[in-house]
């Protein structure tokens, strides 16, 4: 482990000790990722980790289970539903997930997954995202 990574992990752990909640965001679209990050910046009690790559996000989730996963559905390597089922297969269950997609037809598919998943339709609205994240984190 290099020094920079060691220090970064140390700071992350310190923050978590003081009650910060870890939120992982996964979206292959840079503009979308930037927007979600900006909207969630207003939470001072969360530690945000953003990923454009599906496998990097999975690796990070395996390393440490987050309190919330916010992810796009339509992605090039693995779609969001597949990421979700992979995590379930790896026994990384009970991670609340907020799925985001421009395709309204996938909403019913998400509603059948399990109780702690929800769906937000793109284009993303600031208030909708904040309300959903607040709701999940309050119950975490």
């Amino acid at each position, binding site marked *: 482990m290099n020094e920079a990574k060691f220090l970064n992990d140390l700071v992350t752990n310190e923050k978590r000790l003081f009650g910060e909640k870890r939120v992982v965001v996964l979206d292959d*679209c*840079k*503009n*979308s990722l*930037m*927007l979600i990050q*900006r909207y969630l910046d207003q939470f001072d009690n969360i530690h945000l980790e953003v990923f454009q790559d599906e496998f990097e996000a999975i690796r990070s989730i395996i390393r440490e289970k987050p309190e919330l996963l916010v992810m796009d559905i*339509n992605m090039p390597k693995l779609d969001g539903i597949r990421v979700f089922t992979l995590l379930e297969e790896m026994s990384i269950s009970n991670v609340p997930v907020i799925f985001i997609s*421009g*395709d309204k037809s996938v909403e019913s598919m998400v509603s059948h997954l399990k109780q702690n998943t929800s769906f937000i339709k*793109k*284009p*993303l*609205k*600031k208030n909708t995202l904040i309300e959903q994240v607040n709701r999940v984190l309050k119950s975490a």
Partner: protein
Amino acid sequence: MNQAIEITPKDLQDLIPTYIENTFNDYAELKACYEHKNAKGLKEVCHRILGTASAYGFIKLDEICTNVSRAIEAEKFGELMSLIKDLDQYFYYLERSYKR
């Protein structure tokens, strides 16, 4: 076509240069899909742009891409050609407005 200059929410204004740079890349990808008659790719890039354009305040871009998506669905290729021209014009003005 001054519609390229749009109204961005105040809390996102500092992100606009990066947003535009990324959107120019999407536009280049969209044009490549159009030239290679790749309808699936064209639709995917349109959806990507539509996912954030209105949130960043780029309403006209959202409108053109919505119409491009509809034209692909309906296989109205004549209309598609005209919409791609609108998009070219839009990005021409966007470049003049923001990349000065």
